[in-house]
């Protein structure tokens, strides 16, 4: 597969990027890791006249820890997430999800910013970021603005990014003390596949009362965007921990998602699997045994 010709723009600063975006508008696309963009260009699904190469911009790289938040530059690669010592405790959920993306070859190229801007309903970084209450910092000549990730993801392949903006960084507040979490992904194969259903869960518990405190659930691939399963969360929050309660909440999650039939799976199958995976994910986060999944 060959690419069609285009012009390659090599900005030396963020200001250069902003000016190029103002000058060329939707004729230009920003290039990060390229693992989605170049495939779409090879398949002629998009044919930008110009690519703006973001990769050399050090302002967009690296993970920075502040007192009670983590700032992850848009060009941080999946492999950097896997290996970062900063992604500890609840933040480690993001590293866990990064290990499930594609292959080592893809994870050495693909970036967190690219994964979010590509806005696939099956983006593996999105469900963990939703339960971690991530916000995204969008940047342009006019300055920065921060919006919750949930508001940024507006539809399949669609985001709240304006034509003159780039996604600069992802900001994670400190997760609650004692967060228990997991990310489960169901594909047709154990790896090298998009999720049919994915589930991120983050909970805190009161061990004396044996109750759930905070419960956060997010689902991938079963709605136009990755979503929070808020009805299921409410059903568990504050209540006694028990297999029956978990099973009922999983049923609720299956009801509140809006899966589609496509070439990978039917809507009915996806809904059923939401039920199975939410139950397993909550159980696994609590340390209950679940059937083996993946490699």
């Amino acid at each position: 597969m060959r690419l069609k010709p285009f012009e390659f723009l090599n900005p030396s600063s963020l200001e250069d990027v902003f000016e190029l975006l103002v000058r060329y508008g939707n004729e230009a696309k920003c290039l990060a890791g390229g693992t989605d963009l170049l495939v779409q260009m090879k398949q002629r699904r998009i044919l930008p006249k110009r690519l703006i190469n973001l990769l050399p911009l050090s302002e967009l790289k690296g993970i920075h820890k502040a007192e009670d938040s983590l700032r992850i530059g848009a060009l941080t690669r999946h492999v950097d997430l896997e290996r970062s010592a900063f992604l500890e405790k609840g933040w480690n959920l993001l590293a866990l999800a990064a290990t499930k993306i594609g292959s080592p070859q893809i994870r050495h190229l693909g970036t967190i910013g690219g994964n979010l801007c590509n806005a696939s309903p099956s983006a593996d970084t999105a469900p963990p970021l939703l339960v971690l209450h991530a916000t995204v910092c969008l940047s342009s000549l006019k300055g920065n603005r921060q919006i919750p990730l949930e508001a940024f993801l507006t539809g399949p392949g669609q985001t709240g990014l304006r034509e003159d903006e780039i996604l600069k960084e992802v900001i994670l507040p400190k997760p609650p003390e004692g967060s228990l979490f997991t990310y489960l992904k169901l594909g047709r194969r154990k790896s090298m596949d998009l999720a049919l259903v994915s589930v991120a869960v983050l909970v805190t518990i009161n061990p004396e009362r044996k109750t759930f405190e905070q419960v956060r659930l997010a689902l991938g691939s079963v709605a136009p965007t990755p979503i929070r399963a808020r009805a299921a969360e409410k059903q568990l929050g504050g209540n006694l921990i028990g297999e029956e309660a978990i099973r009922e909440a999983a049923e609720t999650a299956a009801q509140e998602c809006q899966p589609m039939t496509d070439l990978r799976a039917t809507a009915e199958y996806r809904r059923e699997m939401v039920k199975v995976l939410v139950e397993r994910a909550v159980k696994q986060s609590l340390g209950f045994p679940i059937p083996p999944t993946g490699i």
Partner: protein
Amino acid sequence: MIYPMKLTVNDELIELEVPAHRTLLEVLRNDLGLKGTKEGCGAGECGACTVLLDDEPVNACLILALQADGKRVTTIEGLSKGSNLHAIQEAFIRHGAIQCGFCTPGMILSAKALLERTPNPTEKEVRRSLVGNFCRCTGYQKIVEAILSLAKRGDG
């Protein structure tokens, strides 16, 4: 439009001029004649085009040559020293880990990246490191055995 760039390919610094839409894979195969790197799917699925970019495995079909400007590339041609094969190549031969050979260069480079980071990998780690390299002769078992035979027991 043509852009100047530099690449260090198998320890040799090369200066060349390429159009923006040329991938690293096309530069390696067509401009430099290094045909050991294969094109399978062209979309980052099969791993036949795996090369090491600054010692890390990547799909050469999914990188513009210009994105690799100034970096070091290792292809399968860079592994042997004269007529002496690299230890991983020797292990693949010894274990019968090659059938048609199309996936072999990519497999060997993925294995090299693994063994450099993890000198004593478990079987699971070996299998995980190869998920992005498809073998359609179904020879995975012998490939895994070949790589495991190089694990440095005890010091990992």
